[in-house]
């Protein structure tokens, strides 16, 4: 792999950039791999990358039914944070966030991690308590967050209306090293990193059947032929139930659409990422100048990535209420992403009823921020056959034991 650098760009500029090589090749599938990762989204590619980097397992294929990074990796609002309440969540999200800090250099691909600061607004007394509790938990978890008052919120976000008639801003949970990254670049950077280790990324390769005997998978049938494997990792957000059914088990997952939209680009308007959970809206401004806005989730099973309308209205209303100047901006584009919602809204990194199949799913609306940590923990699970400490609490067995990881706690219940 030829390294990227400013010198490489200068050299290529002299010959009209005709000398760049492929970021990842398009190989022909081998008959057999040590590990097949199904799903070349961020999580799948990161799983493969850390299998190679941390465990030296490089006879790996990442197979993808469409184009790599084309699922939720390429259609989210790119927020990165680790200010979670529960220990298992904050551990894996903070692992991810800390890996993001050095990811561009690690991958030699600028993923534009931008720790511009992330605010979660408290607009009810209940949220105040929930976020203060989170700050205290984060302190013990080794995560830097703090509670700030309304004036400091205003200093960070001058356009905010602190005194909305319904939901005044009472303060916020601030994570200064939270922020955003360029979502496509995360997938592309990992893909290039995997390819550099000799792994195969097989696009336009859909799994049509999973063949197993005696509780062990031996091969998968794909639209590009039958491929054998010693271990199979299923990392297909939005299609987890479909793939699990091919492997013969059901998941505590429902697939639903999450709505997002962007505005037309404008000059800098908001420097930090803001989440307003009481009114269900969050926004940040991309490096291109667009406001990137995330909204609600449908409450029903939906595999269509088409944008729905009522969530757009709800989200925009909520945001205008808190950020009045955005009223005269315009929506450029809206879309939906399919997210896997689990029974406790926390992810699954787990062994499965089939001995050598491992599954990573259920990230709900929060998958992008977890990619490096999820890949790291998943690689450990696949390589060792047992979860390491990051994945230990995210096993499927928790649903049987009643041992949930519930992050909605911070939002609480109104009294």
């Amino acid at each position, binding site marked *: 792999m030829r390294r990227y650098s400013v010198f490489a760009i200068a050299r290529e*500029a002299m010959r009209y950039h005709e000398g760049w090589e492929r970021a990842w090749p398009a190989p022909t599938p081998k008959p057999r791999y040590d590990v097949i990762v199904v799903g070349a989204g961020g999580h799948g590619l990161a799983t493969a990358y850390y299998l190679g980097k941390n465990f030296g397992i490089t006879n790996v294929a990442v197979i993808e039914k469409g184009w790599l990074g084309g699922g939720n990796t390429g259609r989210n609002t790119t927020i990165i944070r680790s200010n979670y309440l529960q220990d298992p969540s904050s551990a894996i999200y903070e692992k991810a966030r800390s890996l993001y800090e050095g990811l561009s250099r690690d991958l030699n691909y600028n993923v534009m991690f931008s720790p511009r600061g992330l605010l979660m607004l408290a607009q009810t007394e209940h949220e105040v308590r929930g976020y203060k509790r989170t700050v205290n938990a984060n302190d013990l978890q080794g995560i830097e967050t703090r509670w700030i008052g309304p004036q400091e919120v205003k200093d960070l976000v001058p356009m905010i209306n602190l005194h909305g008639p319904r939901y005044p801003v009472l303060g916020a949970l601030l994570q200064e090293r939270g922020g955003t990254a360029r979502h496509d670049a995360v997938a592309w*950077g990992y893909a290039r990193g995997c390819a550099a280790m000799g792994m195969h990324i097989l696009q336009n390769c859909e799994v049509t059947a999973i063949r197993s005997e005696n509780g062990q998978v031996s091969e998968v049938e794909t639209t590009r032929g039958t491929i054998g494997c010693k271990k199979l990792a299923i990392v297909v957000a939005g299609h987890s139930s479909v793939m699990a059914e091919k492997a013969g088990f059901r998941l505590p997952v429902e697939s639903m659409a999450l709505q997002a939209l962007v505005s037309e680009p404008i000059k800098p308007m908001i420097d930090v990422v803001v989440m307003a959970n009481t009114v269900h809206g969050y926004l940040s401004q991309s490096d291109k100048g667009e406001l990137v806005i995330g909204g609600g989730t449908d409450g029903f099973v939906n595999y269509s990535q088409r944008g729905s309308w009522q969530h757009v209205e709800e989200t925009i209303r909520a945001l205008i209420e808190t950020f009045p100047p955005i009223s005269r901006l315009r929506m450029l584009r809206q879309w939906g992403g399919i997210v896997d919602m689990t029974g406790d809204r926390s992810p699954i990194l787990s062994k499965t009823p089939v001995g050598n199949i491992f599954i990573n799913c259920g990230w709900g609306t929060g998958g992008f921020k977890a990619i490096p940590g999820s890949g790291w923990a998943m690689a450990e699970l696949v390589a060792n056959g047992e979860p390491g400490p*990051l994945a230990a609490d995210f096993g499927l067995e928790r649903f049987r034991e009643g041992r949930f990881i519930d992050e909605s706690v911070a939002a609480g219940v109104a009294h």
Partner: protein
Amino acid sequence: MTRRITRLDRGGRLIDRARDITFCFDGRRIPAHPGDTLASALLGAGHVLQGRSFKYHRPRGPVAAGAEEPNALVTLGGRARMEPDLRTTTTEAFDGAEARSQNRWPGLGLDLLAINDRLSAFMPAGFYYKTFMAGRSWEKLFEPIIRRSAGLGPAPTEADPDSYEQAYAFADVIIVGGGVAGLAAALEHGRAGARVWVLEQTPHWGGRAVVDAEADGATIDGLAPEAWVKAALAELEALPNVTLRTRMLAAGLHDHAHLIALESVADTTPGADLPRQRLWRMRAGKVIVAAGALERPLSFPGNDRPGVMLASAVRDYIVNWAVSPGKRIVILTNNDDAYRTALVALDAGIAIPAILDLRKTPNGPLVQAVRDRGVRILPGHSIAKVLGSKQVKGIALCRHESRGEAWLERIPCDAVAMSGGWSPTVHLWSHCGGKLAWDTEAAFFAPDPDKPPLGADGKAMAQCVGAAAGALRLDACLASAMSAAPQVETPAEEPIQPVWVTPAEAGPHLRAKMWLDFQNDVKVSDIQLAAREGYQSVEHAKRYTTLGMATDQGKLSNINGLAILSQALDQPIPATGTTTFRPPYTPIGFGAIAGEARGEIFQPLRRTAMDAWHEDQGAHWEPVGQWRRPYCYPGKAEPHSAAIEREVLAVRNSVGMLDASTLGKIIVKGPDAGRFLDMIYTNMMSTLAVGKCRYGLMCSENGFLMDDGVVARLSEDTWLCHTTTGGAEAIHAHMEDWLQCEWWDWKVWTANVTEAYAQVAVAGPNARKVLEALGGVDVSREALPHMSWTAGPLGGFDARIYRISFSGELGFEIAVPTSQGMALWSRLLEAGKAFDIRPYGTEALHVLRAEKGFIMIGDETDGTVIPQDLGLNWALSKKKADFLGKRAHQRSFMASPDRWKLVGLESLDGSVIPECAIAPAPGENANRQRNTQGRITSSYYSPTLKRGIAMGLVHNGPDRMGEEIIFNADGKEVTARIVSPVFYDPKGEKLDV
């Protein structure tokens, strides 16, 4: 730059030449006529330069005359009405409008950021992925620079003073597009009696046909299209079942034929007492897309220079607005349609020095007509370079089949009209899943009628007609829209020759000067770079280069870009496919999307019968669900803490009153009501005696505490269930869910009567005296013991009185019909004067209950807490075979003795432990996080005990009474002693008086 007045002496079918208006552009006064767009008026005043590109800040003029415009974007209006990124080509000029150019510094003519253009060799597609990685250089240095230079218009800083409204409409057929195809479809369906809406995004009917006929003399039923349109409109206007709307954009087609449309109401009259825009949510039996087609640019070196325009746009400016984009216009085309532009230009007295036709032997009737007028037609020729920078000054001629390095001639001109063919406007068709098919002969993607977007019934919910269906010629266009199509006379046309790059053999240097996405500065070379580097999926190429991601969303660039990608990958265009078409068709304002729901009416506000009184008393409000409740009643300059202390002490020492109307009240009635409540509550409700009250807990089927409240048995078959304020609707829905979907054969009825009753809690040692002062039903200790209720007259009110207490004091809750709530409140205040009665708010309520060790749903519970955690095992019936949550509690983690359990906590120094503090335990877990052993769930200053009190969940807490543990909060440590959670009156003597 010299300004040339280019308004033609006559013509201009859309402008009212008799009236003059003026607007400002960058401080200059621009003359215009009603009917002008900003673009037409600016061109008419000689201002071709109207914008700067996003990345390289190249000077740009309008390339189009409609919604597809990528270049000519301005900021309109000032201060609170400032709106960035508006296309001059679709913004109507109005008297006094203020427009400013954007994305330039210091000015449009001299933009210092155009330095980027000089550096463009170092800034190809995706260059930023390959550098800026050292240390924190990205976040500290490069990203801030990029952010400052990115973006287009300035960000608004003030609240929007305008209002917006929303409307619904239902139709059998909604027709999108008011050109001849749309009007023909409207006649077809309107005559048949269907409810029809016709939506036209511009202020004018007729679309392209009326302009094109100026060139080719086409007729419909022997009429000029303009006259046919007029007649069609007259007929449609007379039909009561047809609604015609101009200035109404069909923005998006969603599932189940849900069409979102935006109507401009008062955009040109800022400050008028009208909603500025109206957002329509429409449901259609069928949507007919008659949105026409978009002309494609050609990719040749320098095709982005101001003065290079689409041939159809040149025609539009001449015919519609009597504006000549140039005095000498060179035309570059690969099809016959561009010759129409030559014809209207010649008629307007504009010189056409040459027509460069990429085809070898163009010879159709339109070509012949132009040739007959003496115009030089150069088949197989192209443009090697566009001369001039801020305005076209000429072109360098070359052969199309060449590398473009041999200039045959320089042809002076001040505009170039280009036509690369047309693409049907398929956006709405595609928004909701309609598929496209590549038409090789016509060289465009057209809707595949066999794969339409499907409605709820599984049948097609949309249909394309006219040019949107690929029927570009007028005769085919009308035939596709109407079963009895009118007679059309229109000239024949020869086939287009698809050309995606010209000159055909251009080297990398020239390909880097061929723009595809004008706004985002994506060139042919960038797409080829993406293909070379493996970004070969159309979505990868788009995202890597930003092709089609500008504010025009690729209307001009997408087809050209994917054709070039296909060439680079050596695969047919259909194999490459298109990117996804997403709503909206053109951007729509957030203000209109939000509609009326802003400020005070952002969300419904629920108010109790006593709300006005609370307001009058200066209550500090707290939102609880959609209700608002008094948090406390501070006096003038009194801090909240003092008010709360005063309110608490009033209850402890004498008497206080609380507006408890928001508490949920659900009637459960019927022969099986007791059996039902035994399933819903964890404790036994069927055995409750009539006249008695019982505190009940509800768990979800997953075992977690959901809600609590006092249940009163009103009669043999009727119970009244109180819920938390926020829980009323959810709990009622929960009950209905189980009744309707699981136990639907049980005879039970429920009713949520929360709003039917006003309820006042009267609490304190003097509470009974206040009630007795009102007179009426016997509320003595004997007649109405704790946890019972009675009904009867009280001070003349028809009241139900519950003897219950959430404060630990003698307490009554009095319920009356809501209409009498305020009267009751006043009477209680009056009667309580003798005892110095005080209203208290939710915070005092919290303090009072915490002193007494009562749990609060949402404080002690958070969705992960089960009754056992709170020491509420007594409320879990052992006798019942089943209740919701029972099975869940048997699971290993819930039955574990290691769960954190409720205790009271006192700081050793008497201070208030910070709420939400967490108690660390020795050591760390496997993820290097500190272990924990408990957390604070409620913490208050107790005015009664004059010290801080708290409740919390602590590992093995109840077994560790008296032990000291350290809590961590806000970076500080507080040592607390584990005690009973009941701080006040542990024996309950105050209650039973």
